Structures are given as C-alpha cells and as structure tokens.
C-alpha cells in the first residue's frame, strides 16, 4: 500500500498536505510505509488485531446480543501532531480546564456568573448534571474536574475546535497507552527515528494526582478505583488503570460506610479508604444521595465526602459543565473567570431554547448536526446531510417539544487521516481526545485517543457506532521534521519483519542498563 493513489479529497488531511506531499511531521512515517513490501501493512494490521484479542483488550456492546466482547478496531496509521501545534493545544486545554474548575466552584457556591447574567439561570437550573446535593461542597484542594477528556476536531480550514468537554468519567485513555505499546512493537524503526513524546507515564501522573487530593494530606493514602464491575463497557480500562497504578480495583459492594469513613472489606477485616477514583456516574454513586435503586454505589458515600473524610475524582456534580447547552457558553466562561480569549475556540453552536437560534435550526435541519444536550456516545444525534426525511421530521418534533434539550452545530468537514481499507489507503474522518489531569498542576498527556469513523464518509467516531482508534503521535516541540537516525533509516524492511510483536514487552522508554564488561561464566555440568 502506498500514497500514489491516495485521494486527499476536499478535506483537511492530517498526513498529506494540499500539494500531495506528506506534512513535514509525517514524512518519516510516509516513507516507512511506502518502503514496506506489498501486503506487509495488512499483515501487521492483522497481528495487531490478534494481539488485542489475545490480551483481552475488549469492550462490551450492550445492544449486541451476539457475543458481547469486541475489540475496538485499531488502525495502524497514526495521527501525527507537530510539536508547535501541540504546544498551543496544551495551553488551550490548560486554560479551559482552569476556567471550567472555577466555573464549577462558582456554580456550587456564590453563582456570581449567573448573577452577572453571563449565563441564563434557567440553562443551569434545567441541566440534569447540576446536583443540588453538591451545593456548598468544598472538594479537597478545591478541585472538581480531576480527569478530563476533551474532544477536539479540526475543520476544513485546518482550525482545531473543542467539540465537547467530557468532565464526568471520560474513558479511553487505556487505549492510548495500549495502542502505543502495540505501535512500538510494530514500527520500532519509526520510533527510533522520530521524536515521539511518550504516553506511558500517564498512570504514574494519575496516581500522583489522586494522592495529592487525599483529604487530610496523609502520607500513605489508600487510593482505589471504583468500577461498576466487569460487565461495564469500560471495565478493561478500570482494571488496567488500577493495575498500572498499583492500587485496588473495587466494586461498590466492596466498600462500606461506617462511623464517618469509607472502608473496604478485606480478608483481614475492614480497611480505610482515602481517595476514590470513581468510574461510576453520579446517579449511581450513592443510593442515599442520588438514584435510590442503584446497586453499584456505596450507601452513605456522599455524607463521608461532604464531611471531608474521603476524596472523589471527579467530584460529583461536574456534569453540569459538560451539558451540551452549557457548552455553548464556555468561551464566555473563560473570558469571565480568566479575562482571556479562548485559545481553542468552540464549534459554533445554536441553542434551541433561544428563539432566534431555534428558528434558524428548524429552517436548516438538513444542514446541521443536532444533539441532545444530555446524551453521550453518539446517541440522540441527527446528522442533517446524512439523514432521511423521516429522521429530520422526527428531530423537528423533538426540538419543538423540548428545545432546552437540543443544540445544533454546522456539519463540520472533520479532518481525515489515511486509513487501511480493503485494497488501499483511504481517508477517514477523525477527532482527538486528549486527557488532562488536574492535581498539583494541570497536566496534558502528550497524545490522546484519535477516534476514527471507519465507515466510508461517516462522521461518527463513537466506538458504539462503527468507530475505531488510532495512535496519536505528538512530536517533541523543538523538532517538527524528524530526521531519521542512520540506524533506523538504513534498516531494510526484512529486519522489520523479524521484529516480534510483544504485547506485553518491557517498557521501551527506559534507558537500557549498561552492559557489564566482566561476565561471570555460566557453570557447566562436569563431564
């Protein structure tokens, strides 16, 4: 497979520039791919899929009765982000998270932003993400949104925009780390040549952040990951993160509230828990505070949290800030709290509860993307240009019936990345979800989950709807046009073939130990 017949189309392409040549940051990879013997790319693709299945890196699809386990399709061609561009994105994300956190704290205390009329009060009051139970709450270290996975997209002009803020329980970071491990075993030659920033320290950063928010600043806090259990679609990730951080993975029934603290049931009695990285939605967290029919959560947890005897990441109540109607106001939120322009702009958004916007939306349903404000995962969405007349009319009824629940955005021509298809490389639309940790500082993992809509022409990247993933390479800032090292550049493709696929090999980032010059001889069996 090569790029000679690659059709860039009328889109921004993340790899190939308008002249038909690769962008500087992608040159080395393009050359590597072109140098592979015929069929080799497909072979490596198959090897990657097999490795994912054997390693059990699978997710469950609820609606699919037949075999609930699937691997998330993985495409070998990475998305490459230049160092300069990343630098700007990193600053933009830090700015946005800082403002979102101030926003959340304000919403649950003084509500200055509402008093000053920046956001209409009813937008917040009607948000299902706003939790009355959190009013007046002071989370440890004043942090609400510890882990964020912001969805970014690039439009036709090449501009990167924020599509969604995922501030509740964003998932997918395990795929970032596992995809990278696979790629390092499949393309070692490119890794030795390009300066790709590592992502493998994410778990260590996550643990640092979680220890930082320990309620009483104890020295050896007990951190746990709280999962809904092994039937959850993101279970692999919960288990993976617990394993990588070296902390316990617990289910709700493992925890119990007693005498003002949270304890976990162990084989030698009850042990106290200080920090909970919870991967359960607010609704299910505590049946006494939220949904009373929840069996996943821990009864009484919110009381302990309010008393400051346990830390939760993310804090409950953060959902209000990633409500899709609230999203439209975030540039104004940034301006309000930080006095700055948003570095990464929003996608222009029409708020259906505003009369003028609604009229425009109803007149242009065939051109717009309409989204339900409180849905995620690509559900409850209309893509006007791809929709049937019936679907459009259905959304017309929905919007009129409940305008607060809908927003609309212009249909973006999402950028594309070459992707391995049946016989050739074809462009497929992508988005990008970087992961941000807010602890002692705001850390943006250099990389992220590139989700790709594998169906030809599709704009929906969600894994539940035919999406797959790609590795995301962020190059070191100082050097956007990687110069291959002589060793890597001169390596013949046959050597590449011999490189084994090591799904669980040793970390490659570490410096190798220097060789001992004096070797102890191996003992031999005497004759």
């Amino acid at each position, binding site marked *: 497979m090569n790029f000679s017949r690659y059709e860039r189309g009328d889109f921004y392409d993340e790899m190939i520039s308008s002249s038909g040549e690769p962008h500087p940051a992608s040159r080395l990879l393009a050359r590597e791919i072109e140098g592979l013997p015929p069929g080799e790319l497909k072979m490596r693709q198959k090897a990657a899929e097999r490795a994912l299945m054997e390693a059990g890196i699978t997710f469950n699809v609820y609606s699919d009765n037949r075999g609930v386990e699937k691997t998330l399709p993985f495409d070998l061609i990475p998305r490459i982000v230049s160092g300069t561009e990343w630098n700007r994105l990193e600053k933009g994300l830090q700015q946005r998270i800082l403002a979102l956190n101030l926003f959340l704290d304000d919403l649950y205390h003084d509500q200055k932003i509402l008093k000053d009329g920046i956001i209409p009060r009813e937008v917040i009051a009607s948000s299902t993400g706003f939790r009355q139970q959190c009013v007046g709450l002071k989370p440890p270290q004043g942090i609400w949104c510890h882990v964020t996975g912001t969805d970014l997209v690039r439009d036709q002009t090449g501009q990167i925009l924020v599509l969604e803020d995922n501030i509740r329980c964003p998932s997918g970071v395990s795929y970032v780390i596992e995809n990278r491990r696979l790629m390092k075993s499949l393309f070692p030659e490119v890794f030795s040549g390009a300066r790709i920033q590592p992502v493998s320290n994410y778990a260590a950063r996550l643990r640092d952040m979680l220890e930082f928010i320990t309620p009483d600043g104890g020295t050896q806090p007990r951190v746990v990951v709280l999962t809904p259990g092994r039937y959850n679609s993101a279970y692999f990730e919960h288990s993976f993160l*617990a394993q990588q951080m070296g902390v316990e*993975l617990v289910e709700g029934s493992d925890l119990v509230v007693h005498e003002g603290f949270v304890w976990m*049931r162990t084989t030698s009695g009850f042990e106290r828990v200080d920090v909970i990285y919870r991967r359960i939605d607010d609704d299910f967290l505590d049946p006494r505070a939220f949904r009373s029919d929840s069996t996943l959560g821990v009864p009484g947890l919110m009381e302990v949290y309010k008393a400051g005897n346990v830390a939760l990441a993310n804090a409950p109540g953060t959902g209000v800030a990633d409500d899709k109607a609230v999203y439209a106001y975030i540039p104004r939120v940034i301006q309000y709290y930080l006095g700055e322009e948003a570095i990464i702009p929003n996608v222009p958004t029409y708020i259906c509860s505003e009369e003028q916007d609604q009229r425009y939306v109803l007149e242009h349903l065939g051109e717009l993307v309409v989204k339900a404000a409180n849905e995620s995962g690509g559900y409850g969405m209309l893509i006007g240009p791809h929709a049937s007349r019936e679907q459009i009319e259905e959304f017309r009824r929905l919007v009129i019936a409940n305008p607060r629940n809908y927003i609309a955005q212009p249909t973006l021509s999402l950028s594309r990345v070459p992707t391995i298809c049946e016989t050739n490389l074809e462009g497929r639309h992508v988005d990008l979800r970087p992961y941000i940790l807010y602890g002692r500082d705001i850390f943006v993992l250099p990389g992220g989950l590139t989700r790709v809509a594998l169906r030809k022409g599709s704009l929906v990247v969600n894994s539940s709807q035919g999406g797959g993933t790609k590795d995301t390479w962020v190059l070191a800032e100082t050097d956007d046009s990687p110069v291959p090292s002589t060793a890597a550049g001169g390596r013949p493709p046959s050597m590449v073939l011999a490189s084994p696929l090591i799904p669980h090999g040793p970390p490659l980032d570490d410096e190798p130990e220097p060789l001992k010059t004096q070797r102890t001889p191996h003992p031999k069996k005497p004759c």
Partner: protein
Amino acid sequence: MLSRVADSLYWMSRYVERAENVARIIDVNLNLMLDNPVGGEQRWQPLIETLADHKAFAGHGTVADSENTIRFLSFDPGNGNSILSCLGTARENARSIREIISSEMWEQLNSFYLRLQDQAAQGTVGQETSQAFYAEVKQACHLFSGITGATMTRNEAWYFIELGRLIERADKTSRILDVKYYIPTGSGADAAGLDDIHWAAVLRSASAFEMYRKRHGRIRPDGIIEFLLLDADFPRSVRHCLDGVRSSLHHITGTPLGSFRNPSEKLLGQLCSDLAFTQVDEIEDEGLHEYLDSLQTKINQVGSGIYDTFFAFRTPTLSRRSRYNEAH
C-alpha cells in the same frame, strides 16, 4: 486483600483445576471402555453423576451414550462443570482480578478459552482426536499453573490461588479413584487381569502411573488406594494436596501450624492428621466408596469454612486493624 478479590482468585484457580480433572476423568473412562472386552457395555451415567448434575443432563432428553456424554461434559454451556463452562468461569473470575494476577496468566487463560470456544462450535470431540484433545486441556491447565508459579509473588493472592487449586485437586483425585467403583470387572479367568488394567488406567489418569511404579512396583489395589489417598509426597495424592491447603491457609492467617483460629483450620488439622495416621486396610474395611464419600463431604466442609472466614459478606464491627488505622 479485598474479600471479593480473594474469592475470585480462589475460584479462578479451582475452576482451572476442575477443567483439568474433568478432562482426566473423561479420558480415563474412554480408556477403560477401550480396554473392556466384556461386551462393550458402556457406562457413562456414573460419570455424569460424579462430575455434574444428572438433572441437567436428563433435561436434554438424550441417552447417556459416549457421544452425548462427552459433549455434555466437555462443552455444554448448561452444565456448569463442563470443561468449557469451568474455563469460562475461571476466565470471568480472572477478568475481575486482572490487576491482581500477571498479564501472562490472563493471556494464557483467555487465549485457551477462545480456542476451546472454537472447538466447542464444532460440536463434539471425535473418538480419533479425543486423546489429543484431553491432553491439550491438561497441558493448557498445567501451563496456566506453571505461569502462575513463575510470575506471581508469594503473597496473599498466591496463597489463595494455591488454596483453590489444591482443595479442588484433593476432591477430584478422590473422584478419579471413585470412577473405578462403577466399572464392572466381570468374572472368570480374565477378571483379575482386567482389573489390573483398569487400576493402571486410574493411575494414568492421575498422571500417577510412573511415580506409583517407583514407589510400589506391582499394580495392587491397596497400593494404588494408598498412593492416591495417603502418600505424603505425590503431588496429586489427597493427603499431599490437603497438607498444601493447610499450609496455604496458615500462610494467609498467620496462625502457627498445629493450632487453629477458625473452623477451617481446625477441620483441616484433623483431616490431615487422619490421613497421616490412617492405614489402607482401615479404608478397605470401611469400604472405599463410603470412605471417599465421607472424605468429599469433609473437603466440602473445609470449603465452606474458607468461605465463612474470608469471603462472606459481613457488616462492619470494626476489626483491630481498622481501629488502628482510624487512630492514626
């Protein structure tokens, strides 16, 4: 360690061992059939009784011939103790503790289960491939336990794995021995020779034939009973397994050997002494089948004791350790 995690480790391990032993027992029965010239009377019903719930089988409305029985015991998803179900359960338990066990263990269990699923999709095991198939199951289970031994730290998790593996093996060795009880030996001149052949097959199914030869030489029923039940050193003998269960249990609790702090420690101490001080003729006096029955009951009691002590869902009355934690 979380009680739920300990529970999953224990059952993961038990179910892998169970799958291996189901394979062993089917294999020995197949071998016995082949060596039975008495008219080829096929006795599969006892095997169903030994290994599974006969009601589940009866529910199928099929006769207990070799093909149906083998399919039922190997692949039937409705039979919780079929090889496929055992490995499926082991895998589901492993999945819920992936962060505790080594990735190598998970991958072995996962990939073997996926292979087995493919095999199950083909329906059944043909007579010509059955030996290879059950050998492969045994091999895969050995590989799992080898990987476990080579990759797990000897911590609490390891001892729960050992506990599960050995208690299951003790139980299943006693059942392998029991299979012989159901096999008719006929009468006449050939009967004695045939009996020897059957006993040898029992030994083989416990991978005990060669080690037995080194210890006892001649094939004698009492020697075999002694070897599989009372031998201190053979790794599949009931006594050896229960000694291992006891030692793992004491590693977990920290109770010195020779004393006890919970019901399963007490029961195990008694059971291990019993096995150490019992002679094979006493077993024969009681009747082998009756002895094995009561042994299996006691092993089950140890199992429920372990459940009560470590896994049972308790309400908090704060333990000493947690009070200590709270004070600090």
